[in-house]
């Protein structure tokens, strides 16, 4: 190639490079955020019912493993931190604190911290590759990100085996990978996670949640991002016993069928039950229960937060019974 042709090539390449710069509309995400639990409140607050896998696209393997679960299982030392996987915040009452790590004025990582996270989530923004598939899986997984407009797109790999939803045993394997979208609109922060798990899910599992910017949230103990283990059930200590139900013997397998008249295939989490056409089947099978049962009341009352409306009369079997309802005065 002679000099002129080389220069022409340079001209072309340079012009293309300069004129096709990608947008880099980075947003300041730093700050503290209060969780807004107006979705899946029971799951994220008091905890869901055993046998409630509604809304989950579970594989047969996932369902079988979930039905072995007993509520004593997470009390074993080896499993106490299993519930605290990187994006477990989607299913927890989790306030968030976010900050950036800067090198030479350039953000090289965004870091998310909060209670119920076993470790901070560090989203690398410096273009580093994901490690080998055989590399160690740390508690936080490994996450990289880039901006697409105002959305921070992240990818998490190398996670540990975990429970997708706390307290009911829905499993997530260590082959799970997450695509995560973090978007801020004014004071609202939306985190959408798409979990792919070739072992326990039949299709990507999507969850979208909202937080609100709040300088008082996620400070001190609320952002500790750690998991401490302890002996929770002394009779189990050093016995090697793993609490579980044998296949077909879980007494809660049909709880949602009995309590809420929900068809078994929906209660036990099948992908086709997540789409509107499933209502054609439901219409002939479902009759609403006579009453709400437990956890019926509005969110604010349940939290007992300042500003809660006084005098709410909602009947909630999980609420302490008032003296009046006990039929007498003090001391009864």
């Amino acid at each position, binding site marked *: 190639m002679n000099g*002129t042709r080389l220069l022409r090539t340079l001209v072309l390449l340079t012009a293309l490079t*300069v004129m096709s710069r990608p947008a880099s509309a980075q947003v300041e995400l730093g700050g503290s955020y209060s969780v807004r639990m*107006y979705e899946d*409140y029971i799951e994220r607050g008091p905890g869901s019912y055993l046998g409630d896998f509604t809304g989950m696209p579970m594989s047969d393997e996932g369902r079988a493993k979930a039905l072995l679960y007993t509520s004593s299982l997470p009390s074993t030392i080896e499993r106490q931190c299993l519930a605290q996987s990187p994006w477990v915040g989607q299913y927890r009452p989790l306030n968030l604190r976010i900050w950036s790590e800067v090198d030479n004025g350039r953000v090289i990582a965004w870091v998310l911290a909060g209670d119920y996270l076993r470790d901070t989530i560090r989203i690398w923004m410096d273009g580093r590759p994901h490690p080998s598939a055989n590399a160690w899986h740390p508690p936080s997984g490994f996450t990289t990100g880039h901006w697409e*407009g105002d959305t921070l797109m992240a990818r998490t790999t190398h996670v540990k085996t975990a429970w997708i939803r706390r307290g009911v045993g829905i499993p997530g394997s260590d082959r799970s990978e997450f695509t995560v979208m973090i978007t801020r609109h004014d004071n609202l922060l939306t985190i959408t996670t798409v979990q792919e798990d070739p072992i326990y899910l039949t299709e990507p599992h999507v969850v979208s949640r909202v937080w609100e910017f709040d300088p008082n949230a996620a400070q001190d103990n609320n952002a500790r991002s750690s998991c401490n283990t302890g002996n929770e059930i002394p009779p189990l200590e050093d016995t090697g016993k793993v609490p579980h139900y044998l296949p077909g013997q879980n007494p809660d397998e049909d709880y949602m069928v009995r309590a809420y008249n929900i068809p078994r295939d929906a209660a036990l989490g099948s992908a086709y039950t997540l789409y509107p056409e499933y209502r054609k089947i439901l219409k002939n099978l479902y009759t609403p229960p006579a*009453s709400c*049962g437990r956890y019926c009341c509005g*969110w604010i009352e349940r939290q007992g937060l300042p500003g809660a409306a006084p005098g709410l009369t909602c009947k909630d079997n999980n609420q302490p019974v008032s003296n009046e309802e006990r039929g007498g005065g003090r001391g009864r």
Partner: protein
Amino acid sequence: MQTDFYHGLLTWLWALVLPLVLPNDSGAQARAGAAAPPRSPRATAPIDLAGQWVAVISEDWRWRMITPPKGDIVSIPLNLQGQHVAEAWDPAKDEAAGEQCKAYGAPGLMRGPIRMRISWLDDNTLQVQTDYGVQTRVLRFERAAAPPGARSWQGATAAEWIVRGDGGRGMTTFGTLKTVTTNLRPGYLRKNGVPYSERAVFTEYWDVHVLPNGDRLLVDTNVVDDPVYLQSPFQTAIHYKLERDASRWDPTPCDARF
């Protein structure tokens, strides 16, 4: 040969400098003044919302896919008055009053088990049609104040693009659709009579994300403000998946019970 070399070098330097000194499209338009009419919202759309989207009910399944029992108001920050209204829910009464679509107003509809078709009605107007309840909402970008019509289930929606990246010099544009819906007829946030009032304001941010496998996800981050029945704003995010196959579109009329 040497002349060619310097000529080439000069051209190369121009290529470096030119994109930096050239005005971008929006700047050029501004200078052109009235000669160049502003481009329409349709022409300047930073994201493509058109198509058929299906709600993926992976959250709140028991409250969205089926009608929960009366009094099940968990998750929603109702005040006392709102709770009393919810506890008085009577679908037979709604049917008798011809109000079986109360759960199909915009703030309730978007959380429903819906398929929606989004399309451009004209250069300034998007429309959102749903098969669930056979509803149509119109999203207007026009700034001129429209005379307030009668209140309706879908209300009046003002739309604006929030654009990042100006599209000049080959830059990609990204953005969000922000909509604010008012003039609503009182309706239900949940099928079992959890109310919102005619003073409710429904604000939404519509984002489209492309997943690594090429799937498109629409996330609607939204806030219902209602000074009558809510203690605090009701903030959620709802997600939908783009469907390439439109065959599952299934118009069904409003139903006050199921």
